[in-house]
């Protein structure tokens, strides 16, 4: 039986048409737009003389390219300035709400959607960005699309989609103390592999997932794409509803009551069967660091850099050797002995207020190790303002971190916040691909708490390793 799964319920209610010989047409409730993947889509629309069908279901912001130092000053990169000017012009021409640089709601597109209450259970959400999977944390069906599809959604508010398979990842039990949502999702990716979710929507289930707050659930769903999945979803519950209530675009009054009744039905029924199921025992999870150049190449903080010869398959051995060559690491090196040059805290994976609180909690009364460059980039202008209201900026700057303005920043290094060749980072972002944070840069993915502890120690560390840690 295929009915009764959360994914099917959301899929089914968005089917506009299922023509013979064509993939079904899916209605899109929310289309998020940013400066980098949209200009060619708007140009295509204009060349064909088409209008934006539903500007009221479209929201734009500036994030990928924006400066995180003096964001309201002149933008020194003329190409970035041109992209932002284009987005502004396109949004004005088509009547699309734009949270531009300087707006109180500007920020990383996957941070602002939930923050504004625009992302709600049971919706379909798309964006020209692979980490759109983030919004699945609310029980929405949310996935990244390319620019041709962005144009299609702008013109029709629909998307053609072959129905993906439904996969369950169930994490039983409670996360051990000190194991975060980031460690959980990196553990899942290590288990199923970079292509383990290809063609599938993953529903995350189990007590460990239920026990996460919304920030943690967003971290998990965000990295679904790193396992190749089309999307990640978590059934909405009281944690979700409490997060949404009172937000700017959340329903109110009678609408709220009706929405709640509907949202409570968005669960996978007890007898439903998945196309594939993976079970993980939460008790086996530990804080994780990636050692290679895919998010699946990771090891626990207590581990060592693996020997490529230890992998069974030839392709994996070759990939591991190439990764170690690129990363400048020797097999057998203890993870805690790897020294880092830069720490980056931010991104759509870990740039929310809860992430900043976790890092600041480690940094309070401590200082960054000599010679380490440490930057923190809030996920949105609102996250920045809220963090400042509770004094987190002072904790970061007292510890020796640079306190920046909101944007994608060093997650993908488009805006000039990059690693130098050979430089090694501990980063709370989502991709450790070769050159991701700058040509020749070496990225290790970690949680915010571990990033903070690592900044203090100068090498990979968990908070419990630090002097004075209780």
């Amino acid at each position: 039986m295929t009915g009764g799964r959360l994914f099917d319920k959301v899929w089914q209610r968005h089917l506009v048409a299922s023509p013979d010989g064509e993939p079904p047409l899916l209605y899109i409730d929310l289309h998020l737009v940013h400066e980098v993947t949209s200009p060619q889509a708007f140009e295509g629309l204009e060349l064909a003389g088409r209008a934006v069908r539903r500007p009221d279901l479209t929201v734009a912001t500036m994030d990928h390219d924006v400066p995180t130092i003096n964001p309201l000053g002149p933008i020194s990169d003329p190409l970035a300035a041109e992209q932002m000017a284009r987005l502004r012009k396109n949004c004005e021409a088509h009547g699309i709400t734009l949270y531009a640089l300087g707006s109180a709601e500007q920020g990383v597109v996957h941070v602002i959607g939930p923050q504004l209450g625009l992302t709600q259970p049971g919706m379909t959400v798309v964006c020209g960005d692979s980490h759109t999977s983030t919004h699945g944390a609310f029980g929405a069906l949310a996935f990244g699309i390319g620019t041709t599809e962005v144009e299609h959604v702008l013109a029709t508010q629909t998307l053609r989609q072959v129905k993906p398979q439904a996969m369950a990842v169930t994490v039983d039990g409670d996360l051990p103390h000190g194991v975060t949502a980031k460690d959980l999702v990196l553990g899942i990716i290590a288990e199923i592999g970079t292509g383990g979710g290809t063609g599938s929507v993953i529903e995350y289930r189990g007590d460990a997932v239920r026990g996460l707050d919304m920030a943690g659930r967003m971290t998990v769903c965000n990295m679904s794409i790193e396992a190749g999945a089309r999307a990640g979803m978590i059934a909405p519950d009281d944690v979700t509803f409490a997060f949404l209530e009172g937000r700017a675009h959340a329903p109110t009054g009678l609408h709220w009551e009706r929405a709640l009744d509907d949202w409570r039905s968005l669960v996978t029924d007890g007898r439903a069967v998945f196309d594939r199921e993976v079970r993980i025992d939460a008790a086996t999870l530990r804080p994780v660091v990636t050692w290679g150049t895919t998010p699946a190449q990771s090891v626990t903080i207590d581990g060592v850099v693996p020997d490529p010869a230890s992998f069974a398959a030839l392709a994996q051995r070759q990939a591991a050797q190439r990764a170690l060559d690129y990363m400048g690491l020797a097999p057998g090196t203890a993870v805690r002995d790897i020294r880092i040059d830069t720490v980056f805290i931010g991104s759509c994976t870990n740039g929310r207020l809860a992430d900043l609180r976790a890092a600041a909690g480690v940094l309070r009364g401590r200082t960054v190790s000599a010679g380490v460059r440490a930057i923190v980039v809030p996920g949105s202008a609102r996250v920045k303002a809220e963090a400042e209201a509770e004094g987190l900026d002072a904790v970061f700057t007292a510890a020796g971190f640079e306190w920046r303005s909101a944007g994608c920043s060093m997650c993908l290094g488009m805006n000039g916040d990059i690693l130098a060749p050979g430089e090694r980072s501990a980063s709370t972002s989502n991709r450790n691909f070769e050159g991701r944070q700058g040509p020749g840069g070496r990225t290790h993915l970690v949680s915010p708490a571990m990033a903070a502890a690592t900044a203090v120690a100068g090498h990979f560390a968990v908070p419990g390793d630090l002097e004075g840690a209780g």
Partner: protein
Amino acid sequence: MRAVRRVAGRAVVIDRRDVDTDQIIPAAWLKRVERTGFGAGLFEAWRRDPDFVLNTPAAAEAKILVAGANFGCGSSREHAVWALQDFGFEAVIAPSFADIFRGNSIGAGLVTAQADDETVAGLTAAVAADPAAQVIVDVAERTVAIPSAGLSAPFALPDYARWRLLEGLDDIAVTLRHADAITDFERSRPDWLPVSGPRAHAAT
């Protein structure tokens, strides 16, 4: 979109799995607001190695790229497809592709032929033996062949993707045939769903 029935030409091989879109086109190139001009950025970092396959004379005329599993993983940037096309590639053959990359390819008219490991290994060996060998990717028949090596094998390509490539269809025009169904659907959407801009709904 231009129709693609058949791609015939030289092939080059990148014998790696998990080739991500950051390698195919680095983020610095995404600042362009055009769809063209990305060829110079294709595999920019790897091309700094003079021995990298795209720096070999055979690559200049290559139309087909053969690569390892999970090709195109990572970012949704369609620029990766545009860069491959701008360089001259019209088809990629791999044991598997990342979902978004595959969707982008079909939308932009780049053939993504999913062949089994054995076929990819056979193509790799044949191209290594004769870099000038003519490789034929037949979209209509869903086969890849190197006649000079006596190699011919099927590949997977979803029916709809095949149809679109063969017809060179504009997806939006196809969808707008269902404009009435979209309008009908919109009338049935729950009234609590959010709209952008200043908060627009109130309790009733």
